């Protein structure tokens, strides 16, 4: 391990981190604005809970709340804490990093001569999001979501939606106040009369949320920088022409490279001519859902089982979409 290589890994780490921190802050600010504008999250609970319509409505929220995948995590967390149906929140989490105006515009700017890609990317993102939401519905919420998130979420849900076993000592979730990872944010619904959080509460919650997410982001960036430095990227692109291998290789590359979804199309442009169309789309679909940089952040929402299911499900869906595109375009 040469000092030059370590210095390169350190620089890559700084590049990834400094690029992602502003987007994380944007996500936390959107999340705080949602808490301020919709205390108690009543409108969130009106989102459809239908297995397919729920994720679709969540995905559509991406147009209103443009954030790339790092900024998306705090917003999705806020949706879950506010009591949004699980499918809608997951639909937002997985599709919104693609279904937002900034990402669609950058895809168009990078590939103006490939109209099929401009259609296939958002459609593919919706398919992946709906598929993942359907898959994760099979796991009970208590086994899917992290404990502190679940506790905050139950405070926002009406009593009728929480099982008797999950209620505690008269006041829902009374034991978690201030004890959760992100502190007691949505604690006002316990009495049934949501109130707007005070500015002090808002700053406290937002500040703590940013700090915890930033630390997880650091871990993800460290991992991504080390893998990028010590695994030559040329290995992944040597199989560019093989239909299935090229898709798998580009999926792996998307996991490793960990760039923001608002610019990944420009990165894909640099090797678009070397790979199959299905592989190109796979790169653009998988990166926004899961990559090394995101693993830590998603771990704040999902338990390990949910995280593994997300990685496996997203990979399978993206591989199938890539194969289908290769059958069509090659």
């Amino acid at each position: 391990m040469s000092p030059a290589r370590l210095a390169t890994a350190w620089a890559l780490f700084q590049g990834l981190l400094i690029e992602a921190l502003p987007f994380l802050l944007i996500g936390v600010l959107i999340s705080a604005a949602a808490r301020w504008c919709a205390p108690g999250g009543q409108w969130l609970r009106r989102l459809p809970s239908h297995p397919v319509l729920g994720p679709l409505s969540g995905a559509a929220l991406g147009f209103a709340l443009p954030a790339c995948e790092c900024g998306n995590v705090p917003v999705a967390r806020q949706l879950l804490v506010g009591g949004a149906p699980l499918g809608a929140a997951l639909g937002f989490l997985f599709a919104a990093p693609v279904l937002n105006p900034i990402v669609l515009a950058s895809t168009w700017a990078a590939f103006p001569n490939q109209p099929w890609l401009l259609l296939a990317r958002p459609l593919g993102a919706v398919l992946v999001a709906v598929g993942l939401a359907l898959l994760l519905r099979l796991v009970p919420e208590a086994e899917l979501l992290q404990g502190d998130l679940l506790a905050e979420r139950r405070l926002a849900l009406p009593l009728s939606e929480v099982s008797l076993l999950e209620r505690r000592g008269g006041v829902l979730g009374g034991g978690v106040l201030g004890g959760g990872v992100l502190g007691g944010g949505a604690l006002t619904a316990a009495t049934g009369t949501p109130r707007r959080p005070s500015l002090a509460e808002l700053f406290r919650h937002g500040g703590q949320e940013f700090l915890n997410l930033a630390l997880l982001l650091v871990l993800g960036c460290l991992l991504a920088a080390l893998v990028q430095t010590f695994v030559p990227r040329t290995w992944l692109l040597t199989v560019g022409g093989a239909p299935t291998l090229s898709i798998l290789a580009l999926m792996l590359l998307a996991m490793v490279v960990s760039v923001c979804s608002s610019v990944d199309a420009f990165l894909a442009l640099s090797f678009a001519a070397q790979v199959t169309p299905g592989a190109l789309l796979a790169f653009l679909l998988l990166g926004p859902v899961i990559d090394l940089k995101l693993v830590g952040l998603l771990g704040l929402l999902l338990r390990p089982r949910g995280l593994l299911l997300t990685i496996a499900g997203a990979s399978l869906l993206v591989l199938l979409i890539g194969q289908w595109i290769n059958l069509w375009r090659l």
Partner: protein
Amino acid sequence: MKPTPGRPPLPQRAALQRGLLLALWALVLLRSSADGRLDLLLRAAFHPLVALAGLLLLALALVQLRLGLVDAAAAAERASRRQGLVLLVTAALSLAVIVLPPAPSFADLAAQRPGDDTAQEDLSFVLPPAQRSLTDWVRLLRSQPDPDLFAGDPVRISGFVLPMAGEPPQIARLLVRCCLADAAPVGLPVRWPGPPPPPDQWLRLEGRMAVTSSADGRQLVVLPSRIERIARPARPLEP
């Protein structure tokens, strides 16, 4: 949150610790914006966003610090052990980022990346030969692949020395769309007059384009008449 009677000592107040942590992150972003390292890490379009985020974090930090001193409820909140741990890790990390600026080896980075293969079918504007940067030359050669069109043209370019497997090193630049993580090299072959310079060395070359024949066919090569060692430029990455 039920306020505890009395206020904990200043170092144990959660709001003050949060304020300090946010200030550290703000310092990382603002320091990075001020010391020029962003030119080495990110595409220029993102620089204002980093500075703005730094200022916003600083404002949030000041609010937290004020709350920890003035607001009764906030001042009464005692920091948890976990928050103390976050404080230590963040402080160590942010200080490391500030104290150890990035010093990547471009040659090492480029050696692991496939070259940029962006197809540029037509160039709307072409600079005179002596004013073309290395990247301009590479893009021009992609749009006009006939090497004989450029034989004898004057060349004045700068870049770093990129070792190539099985052939002489090239003079190269890194193209970046977002951050260093997506950097892709572009390079031009050079016929070095003596032993080639060491990898990563930044050079300014003046000379002419010439056509050589190799197993891959005819290709353009830079024939330098003057080679000057230079320091890494302040903005080494190209969009």
